[in-house]
């Protein structure tokens, strides 16, 4: 039981909890206590330290912005206006709050507000579904499309859309990059032929890819029922992120161990058998390393692409909040920042455990 749970934890990348489990089962308390401290408590302490510094910085910025406002009022409208401004700021009135880096407390407040917002929107959605269910059944019988909820998406809905875009983008990247990687890995001349093209296209910025995809998709897709902005954004994400997988796959295929190639030669395997039974399994670890990079790159470029493609998601959420300029907009942007970071971290961990499962070479003498 204990060993099994430790193995699972290691597999999913939560190995830092291992000393805690050993500690609870009473195994070498002093050693595991120390390990728990270094592996789990120290990172936690550093996060706390980060929040403290952030709080101090935000307070300093708040004070400096407030004093600038007061001085400005004094210079433009005289002493009375300055006192009024100071009172207004101290009273916490929304109209005259200094607009600067939000403090951790404000960000937490914004997070709660977003959560409440999500709850109320999902309630509305459920209500709407109840209301239209009868009508939708009728419409279905008549062969019409059902009526769907078209209200404002909540923050969680936007996270969902972003994850969907990344998943579609990564799938596209995999479907393009892995076969091409295998082909150019197998043929020396094709590899040399494609090398320059790959080197030139690899560093192209996500924004340019987006514009390029926009030019093509705009012409190719004329059906108005399709979600064009989603198509544009996921294709651009895929194109930006596929290069790591492409390069890694071709390296993996080129560097298949000579032993295995000799086995294939001695057994006289056909080309298809050679690819599927020898080359592909032998290069799987490197392919998955590439896919892991692809996933993290696609999550990183996603925000910029969604922002420009007007596709609903975290990117447009950030941009809308910035344009909005409401009192808690800055805090909401910071919430989005942390959510993006944490989801990116989780995606990376998932890919890491998949990668670990694929590497047969581990522990091989």
């Amino acid at each position, binding site marked *: 039981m204990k060993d099994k749970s430790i193995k699972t934890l290691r597999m999913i990348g939560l190995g830092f909890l291992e000393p805690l489990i050993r500690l609870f089962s009473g195994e070498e308390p002093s050693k595991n206590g120390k390990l728990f401290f270094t592996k789990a408590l120290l990172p936690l302490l550093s996060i706390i330290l980060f929040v403290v510094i952030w709080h101090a910085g935000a307070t300093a910025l708040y004070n400096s912005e407030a004093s600038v406002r007061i001085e400005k009022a004094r210079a433009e409208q005289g002493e009375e206006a300055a006192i009024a401004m100071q009172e207004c700021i101290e009273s916490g009135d929304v109209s005259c709050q200094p607009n600067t880096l939000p403090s951790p407390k404000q960000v937490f407040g914004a997070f709660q507000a977003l959560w409440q917002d999500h709850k109320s929107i999902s309630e509305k959605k459920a209500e709407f579904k109840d209301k239209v269910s009868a009508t939708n059944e009728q419409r279905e019988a008549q062969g019409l499309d059902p009526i769907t909820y078209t209200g404002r998406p909540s923050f969680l809905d936007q996270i969902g859309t972003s994850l969907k875009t990344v998943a579609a983008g990564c799938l596209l990247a995999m479907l393009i990059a892995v076969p091409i990687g295998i082909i150019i890995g197998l043929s020396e001349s094709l590899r040399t032929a494609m090398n320059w093209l790959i080197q030139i296209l690899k560093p192209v910025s996500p924004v340019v890819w987006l514009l390029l995809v926009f030019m093509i998709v705009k012409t190719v897709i004329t059906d108005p029922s399709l979600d064009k902005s989603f198509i544009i954004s996921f294709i651009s994400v895929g194109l930006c992120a596929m290069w790591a997988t492409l390069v890694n796959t071709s390296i993996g295929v080129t560097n298949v161990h000579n*032993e295995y190639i000799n086995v294939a030669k001695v057994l006289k395997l056909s080309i298809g058998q050679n690819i599927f039974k020898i080359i592909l399994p032998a290069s799987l670890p490197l392919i998955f390393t590439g896919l892991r990079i692809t996933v993290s790159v696609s999550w990183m470029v996603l925000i910029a692409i969604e922002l420009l493609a007007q596709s609903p998601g975290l990117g447009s959420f950030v941009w809308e909040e910035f344009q909005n300029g409401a009192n808690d907009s800055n805090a909401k942007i910071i919430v989005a920042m942390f959510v993006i970071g944490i989801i990116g971290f989780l995606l990376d961990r998932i890919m890491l455990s998949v990668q670990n499962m694929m590497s047969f070479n581990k522990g*091989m003498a």
Partner: protein
Amino acid sequence: MAILELNNVSKSFGVGSSKIDVLSDINLKVNEGEFLAIVGFSGSGKTTLINLINGLLFPDKGEVLLKGQPITGPGPDRGVIFQNYSLLPWLSVYSNVKLAVDEVFPKMSKSDKEAHILKYIEMVNLTPAKDKKPKELSGGMRQRVSVARALAMNPEMLLMDEPLSALDALTRGSLQEEIIKIWSQDKKTAILITNDVDEGILMADRIIPLTPGPKATLGPEFKVPFDRPRDVTSINKDEQYKRLRNDILEYLMEVGATRRQTSDQKYILPDLQPVMPGRVIFGKKKYAESVKHF
């Protein structure tokens, strides 16, 4: 009748000044059903020789004939046991053998195939480990899988490239006996490449030394007169065994020595100042420094 013939075979690698003549003027006839051992020091080109026979390499000069026909590439008629086992780490023992069987007997029915594979896994005593991956096996067990894979192809000839040199002495001894036991069941032609003269005497009918490279060539043959099955302990005490062993070793040493004498290559050694080992004792530093260079 010779099943395998090598006529004036030479092989070199590289071009220009970095060209290395590995093998030169190799002549060899292997008879059907015999167990031949080729003995040589490491680096003498033994693996190159076996790769010429299994078809992974082709000679620069001369010809390699299998049943009178020149070899055009690797084939399932020659089962190869590699020194480094060359098992596919993502496949189980059973699947590793199956990969070979699938290629050689594509028309065999599923149940026949399974019986065939299990028979050879049983032959090398690996039935309990048939679903394990190579990384879960010891070196000796891995080499047995390799033996089973080569035998399951039902080859006309078995080529062994230092199959046992990466194993410890005990495992080595037991695997030697096992390979001989399996070989004596149907007495296929077998070529064993080894750097161990004793191993050659214990296993082979005939031993041919390969002179040290570059430009390695085959020396005179030594017949092994012992009857099969051979018993290690009784052979070890035999006077004939000692003489044979000394003859082969002497030949190899002698060739190595003359080669060194006739070599016109001069090695220029760097002029190094030796440093005296040992620690410097307090107060005696000056003395220690004075003896540092001499």
